[in-house]
């Protein structure tokens, strides 16, 4: 298994290379000029040119790519054009909220979706099944920000149970951390619940039709024990797969949620950087996301052997 893992890790290098090249080229070719933004409304063209030169933006493509790549290989992700702070510092400041939000969202989504999916599968074909799936799909069909606004209006503004915005680190107390996390993670979680519920249901349906389940029933095992003891474990693989994919999907939803709830996370950092053309940040964060995605998928693949002893690497 270790050898498999190492082999997979090695295979990620060309993938990351593709990503790096793609992102860098995209930014290089883009219109829009951070130097002009910095120079301000009343600047002349010479001013803008001088600022551009001081930022190193007037160098040719290969020089810029090479410089960036070389710095990257030494662990330096570059410096933000606007703030002058190192990209790694900026990412470091923002990782925690996004991580917390992603984790909480996954917990909410899984906690809601798996029981719903199991229930729907157990009563397949009936109106509970259809109803549960329709509700799940509804969560999938409403844009995240609409849901987020609705929740804020109800729980924060009307009922005043929860704070409107912001993020409170867990180091400053568990209570404030949770109260600030509830609304954002529920808003996002409902959206992804459908995805997971759907897989769970389908997977369970498939497994429930298998012979060994019928045998378990015939043995006299209680239906509940059959579900959890045998079926769920075997259904786990596709569920875990989709969770792995879900983490990549979450970044998209996270961006919106962070904007609505003013959470200082990486999603917003990236969007702001894109809209302002702060290239080093865009490059650094994209690489980071790709690395995370690849890593998560590797972990997911490795976890298969936990669930299915037949799978050996």
């Amino acid at each position: 298994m270790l050898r498999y893992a190492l082999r997979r890790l090695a295979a990620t290098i060309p993938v990351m290379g593709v990503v790096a090249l793609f992102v860098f080229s995209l930014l290089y070719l883009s219109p829009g000029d951070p130097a002009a933004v910095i120079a301000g409304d009343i600047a002349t063209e010479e001013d803008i040119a001088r600022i551009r030169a001081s930022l190193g933006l007037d160098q040719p493509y290969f020089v810029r790519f090479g410089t960036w790549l070389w710095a990257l290989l030494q662990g330096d992700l570059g410096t933000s054009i606007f703030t002058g702070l190192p990209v790694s510092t900026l990412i470091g400041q923002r990782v925690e909220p996004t991580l917390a939000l992603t984790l909480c969202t996954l917990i909410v989504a899984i906690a809601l979706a798996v029981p719903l999916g199991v229930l729907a599968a157990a009563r397949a074909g009936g109106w509970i099944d259809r109803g549960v799936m329709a509700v799940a799909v509804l969560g999938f069909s409403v844009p995240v920000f609409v849901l987020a606004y609705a929740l804020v209006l109800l729980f924060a503004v009307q009922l005043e149970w929860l704070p409107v915005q912001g993020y409170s680190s867990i180091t400053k107390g568990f209570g404030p951390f949770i109260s600030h996390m509830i609304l954002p993670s529920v808003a996002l979680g409902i959206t992804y619940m459908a995805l997971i519920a759907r897989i769970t249901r389908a997977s369970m349906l498939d497994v429930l039709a298998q012979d060994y389940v019928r045998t378990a029933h015939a043995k006299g095992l209680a239906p509940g024990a059959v579900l959890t003891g045998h079926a769920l474990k075997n259904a786990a693989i596709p569920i875990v797969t989709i969770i792995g994919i879900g983490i990549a999907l979450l970044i998209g939803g996270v961006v919106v949620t962070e904007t609505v709830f003013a959470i200082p996370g990486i999603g917003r950092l990236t969007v702001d950087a894109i809209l302002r053309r702060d290239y080093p940040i865009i490059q650094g964060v994209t690489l980071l996301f790709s690395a995370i995605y690849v890593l998560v998928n590797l972990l997911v693949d490795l976890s298969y052997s936990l669930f299915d002893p037949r799978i050996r690497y």
Partner: protein
Amino acid sequence: MGLLSVVGRSPGSRAMSLSLVGATCLLVAGSALAQPKTLKFVPEADLRSLDPIWTTAYITRNHGYMVYDVLFAIDEKFQVQPQMVDKHELSPDKLTYTFTLRDGLKFHDGQPVKAADCIASIQRWAKRDVFGQKLADMTDSWTAVNDKTFRLKLKAPFPYVLDALAKPSSNVPFIMPERIAKTDAFTAITEAVGSGPFRFVKEEWVPGNKVVYVKNGDYVPRKEPPSWGAGGKVAKVDRVEWIYIPDAATAAAALNAGEVDWWQQMPPDLIPLLAKNKDVKIENTDPLGSIGLLRFNHLQVPFNNQKLRQAVLLVVDQNDYAIAIAGDPKNGKPCASFFTCGTPLANTVGSEVLTGKRDYEKAKALVKESGYKGEKVIVLDATDQPIVHAQALLTGEMLRKIGINAELAASDWGTLITRRSSKEPVDKGGWSIFHTWFVGPDIVNPALNSPLRGAGEKSWFGWPTDPKLEELRDAWFNAPTAADQKKIAEEMQKRAWETVPFIPTAQFIIPTAYRTSLSGIIRSPVTFLWNVEKK
């Protein structure tokens, strides 16, 4: 959660539950009596750059006012007042100024403020700023006589030296330590060390989220009461946090809930949300407001044609623009002058062309007369800037109504200001019209009013050529009395209605909202955070 669900449904539940929790905390934790006062402020934008000379962004200017101090400042009567300067004299031949600094001025790193620091800071500022460049042109030399005194020797008498040094808005000649001010004016500084009433806490800065300042215990404020940027700058809170909330609805809810204390600029449409809250006050603390403007590209067809520009002038309805931007006649009104209404040089000479009844027929005829052949007109639109966006949408509609083939080019602000520097025709990536807005102080006189120039390609974006306007502007600099200045301003305006370098669209004030626990907010065009107390 149990406590909250019990009291959950009744009004004031949050206050009740909070006070119950609060009382418990006091008993259990035995908190200290003297709590440091923190002011939580929602700024107009995200602070990205720390260098107020390198960038003209208003948010960086505001940051500058927190951590730096200035030699002179303008007060609410438009008079120049000394700030860091104790005494100043002008020699009888009007060629030499001598400045002496006040006692006890220190930088945040403990070093005293010296003449050399002031000179280096002014010279760096003069390399980037329009007014500063004019001053530099007239300057023969700067010399430091001793640590507290320095001299400016001019080539010829220049009456605007103090006005330049007291410039309230971007770029402001903030005073920095010499070692930092020696940085090239086109490279950003990375340290924020000044001698102002607050210190910048760099370790707690999270760009895009939070900026933290603490009170500068070493600051020696002047004795006079504060008046705009002049007078005593007493920091009355211990700590200031700038909390950037990008979403307006969220910011409104946060202010309502007391999670923040002061929202610098709120969209006027949201006033009803906050008006019902007894703990929140909404005010217009900005006496001058801002001016929206429509700028033509004078280098390319079709707006290189004066008649066509005049046609547009005939149909711009400032009332529409004012409401579109401000939402409410209280916050936005027409200002048919090329200088900020409410300031000395604003006048109504020739304004009927903009304030009279809008004449679409006459405009359409003028369009025909100008020889307009249906060429495509590109109106730049920045969708992430509501004020620019609203104006662009209105203009697009209006142009189409008089038969001009207008198209909106939507992008974000960053792309807009890149595109507007292009002098090419529209089919090669150029533009015909863009909108922006300036704060009042930025267009009060011909020295600062960069759109009101005619220096061709050397001018601000749009590049109008009008030698007569330039002549008048030079004359203003040499005008002997205030009455003469006013007369020249009127002449310039009359000329501008004819040649239409740009069209002012509206004067609007963006209201500010704050919790009633705050007091001492200064009424001024720039938001200052000294003198503000929190109960």
